[in-house]
């Protein structure tokens, strides 16, 4: 028990890999023949046994895949020993059967891990894996198997030799499926991928030129490293996680590696055609046609999956949008109903008609309630307006109307507030200036600007509202209040932005008024700008297009 914990805690995997790599280096330094064979076989057997040790140490939830990996490697190691004992046995020899048995064991182990991982996107991932596998199979068929089939030797010899590249295809299918489905990029995952890739690369180097191989060849390094990586993966504690079913299923990640692999796979058919053409080699038309057709079907399947996923996302977005609208409507109702009572009853209480009359002190308290609820109402309206704006629900009903008239009305309504603060409000404008606008919104826009000016202008100040004509209809609001810096001028329209002076001067506000003013102006096809005035104060300028009828009259 203690030994188990000690081995788990002391990076037994890294130690195993380090020793193994050193021994693999030694392999190339010692004389060929028996010493090399013994070392090679030892690495194979030790690695197979180490996989078993890993299962005992880490007790993964799913043991079967790891036992299959152990058996597969053991099968290779036994084949190595048989091959070393009688290297000149005719093909198919007993060693061949052991070698060929190893591949399916490993592939089934990988398949087991994929199935165990579960998840919605498994189908999509497997389609992608299949595309890559078909591409690889095409290469194997054209460049390796054809060579063997057309080569020398007895029928059975050629059949068994051709089985090796086919087995590589099987293993690659397992690897591709495993690579795309695994959501956990743990050390054990990388080691397993490394083990299979190393093995496939070594097999390919061997398979493309089998005649050039002799024991002690550099290719052996690939096979030895593959053994070691399989074992290290099993010894890594993260192998536990790799064997657990995933609870969370995520959308397939579109990584550059994945895209590159798929593009490379899809280009395999034209690439094979080109290579064979350049080499002047005979073209295996059935192979290319089969592979290209299967890939076409798989790509369509994958596309259908993507379209279905997009459709699901779209439905979810529409639902989210609807819920947001519902929420805004609900909040609007639930905030206004109590406000109606607060404001209405305050007004009733302040009514001079009822006896006994309120004393001055109580009256002043209720006036504070009244002012505050008015402010709260304005805030609620502003927030709801912004919420509607963001949901794209700014309903405008534009009609031709006189900008001068609306501006004058705004000034009339604001006059009392300005006078209460001791600010002079002046309107200048001559003649009708016809614009096409939503009357309620235009009024809200002008009121926002004028209220803003009143808010920022101290007692004794002066606010000028001027309507004039130019290329477009122009409305300017000039105040000699606290103003802002030139740097701030472009930011005053940002949502929730408040100028430094506003914060320092403790002017109340949410930073929504000008944002709303800008939104309304732009919704009418106009522009709004702000600039500081020399000697303090600010100028806000709105330009609106003229109503179309007015343009025709001109």
């Amino acid at each position, binding site marked *: 028990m203690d030994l188990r914990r000690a081995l788990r805690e002391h990076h037994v995997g890294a130690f195993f890999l380090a020793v193994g790599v050193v021994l693999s280096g030694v392999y190339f330094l010692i004389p060929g023949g028996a010493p090399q064979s013994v070392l090679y076989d030892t690495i194979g057997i030790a690695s197979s046994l180490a996989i078993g040790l890993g299962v005992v140490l880490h007790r993964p939830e799913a043991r079967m895949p790891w036992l299959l990996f152990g058996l597969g490697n053991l099968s290779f190691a036994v084949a190595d020993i048989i091959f070393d004992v009688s290297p000149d046995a005719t093909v198919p020899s007993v060693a061949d059967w052991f070698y060929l048995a190893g591949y399916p064991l490993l592939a089934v182990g990988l398949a087991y891990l994929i199935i165990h991982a579960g998840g919605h996107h498994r189908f999509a991932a497997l389609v992608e894996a299949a595309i890559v596998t078909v591409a690889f199979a095409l290469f194997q068929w054209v460049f390796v198997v054809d060579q063997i089939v057309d080569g020398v030797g007895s029928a059975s010899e050629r059949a068994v030799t051709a089985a090796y590249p086919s087995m590589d295809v099987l293993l690659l299918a397992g690897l591709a499926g495993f690579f795309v489905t695994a959501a956990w990029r743990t050390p054990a995952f990388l080691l397993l991928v490394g083990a299979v890739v190393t093995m496939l690369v070594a097999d390919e180097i061997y398979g493309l030129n089998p005649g050039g191989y002799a024991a002690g060849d550099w290719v052996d390094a690939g096979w030895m490293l593959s053994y070691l990586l399989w074992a290290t993966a099993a010894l890594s504690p993260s192998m536990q996680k790799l064997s657990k079913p995933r609870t969370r299923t995520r959308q397939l990640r579109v990584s550059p590696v994945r895209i590159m692999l798929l593009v490379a796979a899809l280009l395999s058919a034209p690439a094979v055609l080109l290579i064979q053409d350049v080499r002047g080699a005979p073209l295996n038309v059935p192979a290319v046609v089969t592979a290209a057709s299967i890939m076409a079907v798989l790509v369509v399947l994958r596309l259908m999956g993507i379209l279905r996923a997009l459709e699901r996302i779209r439905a979810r977005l529409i639902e989210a949008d609807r819920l947001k609208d519902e929420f805004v409507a609900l909040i609007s109702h639930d905030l206004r109903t109590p406000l*109606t009572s607060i404001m209405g*009853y305050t*007004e*009733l209480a302040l009514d001079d008609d009822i006896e006994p009359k309120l004393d001055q002190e109580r009256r002043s308290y209720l006036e504070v309630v009244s002012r505050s609820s008015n402010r709260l*109402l304005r805030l609620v309206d502003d927030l709801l307006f912004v919420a*509607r704006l963001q949901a794209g629900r700014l309903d405008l*009903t534009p009609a031709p109307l006189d900008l001068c008239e609306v501006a004058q009305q705004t000034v009339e309504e604001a006059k009392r507030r300005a006078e209460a603060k001791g600010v002079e409000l002046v309107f200048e404008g001559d003649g009708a200036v016809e614009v096409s606008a939503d009357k*309620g919104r235009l009024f809200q826009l002008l009121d926002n600007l004028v209220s803003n000016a009143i808010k920022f202008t101290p007692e004794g100040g002066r606010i000028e509202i001027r309507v004039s004509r130019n290329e477009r209809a122009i409305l300017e609001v000039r105040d000699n209040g606290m103003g802002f810096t030139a740097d701030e001028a472009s930011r005053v329209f940002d949502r929730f932005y408040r100028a430094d002076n506003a914060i320092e001067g403790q002017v109340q506000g949410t930073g929504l008024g000008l944002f709303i003013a800008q939104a309304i102006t732009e919704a009418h096809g106009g522009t709004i700008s702000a600039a500081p005035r020399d000697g303090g104060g600010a100028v806000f300028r709105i330009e609106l297009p003229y109503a179309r009828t007015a343009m025709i009259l001109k």
Partner: protein
Amino acid sequence: MSSQVILVADDDDDILLLVTTRLRRDGHEVVSASRGDDALALAREIRPALAVLDVGMPGLDGLQVLEQIRADETLDGTRVLLLTAKAQESDVRRGYAGGADAYVKKPFSPAELSTRVRELLDETG
């Protein structure tokens, strides 16, 4: 000839009391309901000169009550003022399209409501 009674319907008791209090202070005779279907039954019974209807009510909502009132020939003389917390322009348009004579947004000033009511009753004569 319809009566000079005003029917007020709102499912919020506080607001119902607020409206009735204000209108009674102005010297109007007021009856009230807190459900849409009750309001419609009452309207058919007393044939009020004016109905002040909240839009969001259980039973029937204010727009549905308005629709029923307009469909009822015996209620031709009844003016309708819609009272609502929904301040969206589209609701206002729907209200007028349904035949409402006036529209007051919540929160409203009781004084403003009282003015609108007087205007509507004066128009009726």
